[in-house]
């Protein structure tokens, strides 16, 4: 019972946060210096009035806000300001699968390899493999994606012709390799370091000592007894990891010419396309907040004590 009430509370908080983001973004946009049509120089006065009426810009601000919220509730993000006959919702519909595929693959790989490498480094503490892994992790975190991706494209695409440099081609695996690799490196590095530090600590716990004293083989002790407590810090990093991947996707999609929402966002920013940018920001924020709720659920699985302590 207590858990349900806790999650209900978290859910309401999440919705409130999202509402706050939408509201702030909306009012920021409407209050921006100059209207969205100031750069259009060729509109005669009545045509401009028409367009403004069509976009509802002649209404008082709070009515516009209400209409926007209403439209949002139906999944309607409004038309793009730049490309009048394209709706933002359409663009999101096209771009989301691409970005979601990239992001999910990158995050999945980061988790899988990050945890594995971190655990191995912890088991072989102070060995050459340990130091090598951790240095690699730092490199993955430090070297920016917009440096690495062109480099890799240069080496593997141009000098060696093994992989395509850009393009989506409906998600063919070859086109996914470089972008996903570059996208997964920063979170992989952090996850590896977190896992290593956490595993080292957990391996010194009394209950792990008991497990060893029972004559259980190393693999069983690590996987059954040590892994779940060791992953708690990694779970705490999941939401920032998603944020990192999202941020990285802006660059990766732009460089590699992948038609995801990241690329739309960047183009929208360069074009000053208000509704597009606003819509994308809302989509990203929703994802992130949803992820936060999922992680909270995950904590309860990792450590049963949490289920009761709330």
């Amino acid at each position: 019972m207590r858990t349900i009430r806790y999650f209900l509370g978290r859910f309401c908080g999440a919705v409130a946060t999202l509402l706050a983001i939408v509201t702030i973004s909306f009012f920021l946009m409407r209050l921006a210096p100059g209207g969205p049509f100031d750069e259009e120089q060729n509109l005669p006065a009545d045509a401009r009035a028409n367009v403004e009426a069509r976009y509802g810009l002649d209404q008082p601000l709070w009515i516009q806000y209400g209409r926007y919220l209403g439209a949002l509730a139906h999944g309607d993000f409004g038309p793009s300001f730049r490309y009048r006959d394209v709706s933002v919702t359409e663009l999101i519909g096209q771009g989301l699968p691409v970005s979601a595929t990239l992001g999910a693959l990158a995050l999945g790989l980061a988790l899988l390899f990050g945890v594995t490498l971190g655990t191995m480094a912890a088991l072989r503490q102070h060995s050459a493999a340990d130091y090598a892994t951790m240095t690699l992790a730092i490199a993955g975190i430090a070297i920016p994606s917009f440096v690495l991706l062109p480099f890799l494209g240069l080496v593997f695409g141009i000098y060696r012709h093994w992989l395509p440099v850009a393009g989506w081609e409906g998600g063919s695996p070859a086109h996914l390799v470089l972008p996903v690799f570059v996208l997964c490196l920063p979170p992989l590095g952090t996850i590896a370091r977190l896992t290593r530090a956490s595993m080292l600590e957990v391996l010194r716990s009394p209950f792990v000592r008991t497990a060893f004293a029972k004559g259980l083989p190393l693999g069983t002790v690590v996987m059954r007894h040590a892994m779940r407590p060791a992953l708690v810090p990694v779970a705490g990093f999941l939401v920032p990891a998603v944020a990192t991947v999202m941020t990285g996707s802006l660059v990766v999609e732009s460089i590699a010419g992948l038609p995801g929402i990241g690329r739309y966002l960047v183009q929208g920013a360069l074009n000053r396309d208000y509704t597009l940018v606003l819509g994308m920001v809302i989509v990203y924020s929703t994802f992130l907040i949803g992820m936060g709720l999922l992680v909270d659920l995950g904590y309860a699985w990792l450590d049963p004590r949490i289920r009761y302590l709330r």
Partner: protein
Amino acid sequence: MAPGLAEPVLVIEELKVEFRRGRVATTTVREVSLTVALGECLGIVGESGSGKSQIFLAAIGLLAANARASGSARFIGTELLSAPRATLNAVRGSRLTMVFQDPQSALTPHLKIGVQMAEVLVRHRGLSWRDAEAAALAMLRRVKIADPERRLRQYPHELSGGMRQRVLIGMSLLCEPDLLIADEPTTALDVTVQAQVLELLCAMRQEFRMGVVLISHDFAVVAGLADRIIVMYAGRVVESATAAELFARPRHPYTAALMQCAPDLAAAPTPRMSTLSGQPPDPDARIDGCAFAPRCSNASPRCRIERPLLQSIGAAAQLACHHPLPI
């Protein structure tokens, strides 16, 4: 229970345990030799830092990564100290088991009790999970845990401290070991629960006919159970004798002083009153002479220069002292 005549289950010879941190080497166990016979209960008493736990951690292969053990520890003929991990894993948890002192944290928090117990049998006896859990259930009954079916499905934090210790003891008995090492099994428990746990150990020892090593800093804990007692100070054995002998006539000044610190188990709990002043020596320091000399009321100048060697004084007794207490 008659001690000593049965064949030895654990033979430790000249065991030395050393820790390295950077360039500093700390020796916690210095040339300790002892024997545990099948069916015998051996009590090991000493202050914390005396090395009493380290001896057995070395034997069972659970020393910290920066520790080195030298000497010999033979368990029913198998040398344990340099044994490969596979050998160790075959022995520990099944024939040689150890119960640690803090039941609060000695059980894995995210696994059910049933799983943690059953995995011992699955691993060592090759049972199916279902059969193993049934055996675990039976064991929970043997260690007198009420409502065992429910407990089997619970997590460690849902059990009280005393119950957890019973589970740990039960877990160590699942494969009917030849030797059970109990390291401060009652220290973290309430006084009332302490008595119950010791009673349980006594009963189990008789039922399973196994050797037991009982480690404690408190004489009262080993009093009811031990056949023989070894007293340790600063990594060395200073006195050993049968329990009856030791309680009647302690010969080493440290033994006598330590005994006076122990509250009587049978009487109502009294606050601990120590007549033993000072601290055990720093394990990093080099000691000339007897380690106990600074705190000993019997000490002479000879004690500070010449370390007393451990010598046999009778059939089953040993003593390392220049000026033992009069009989």
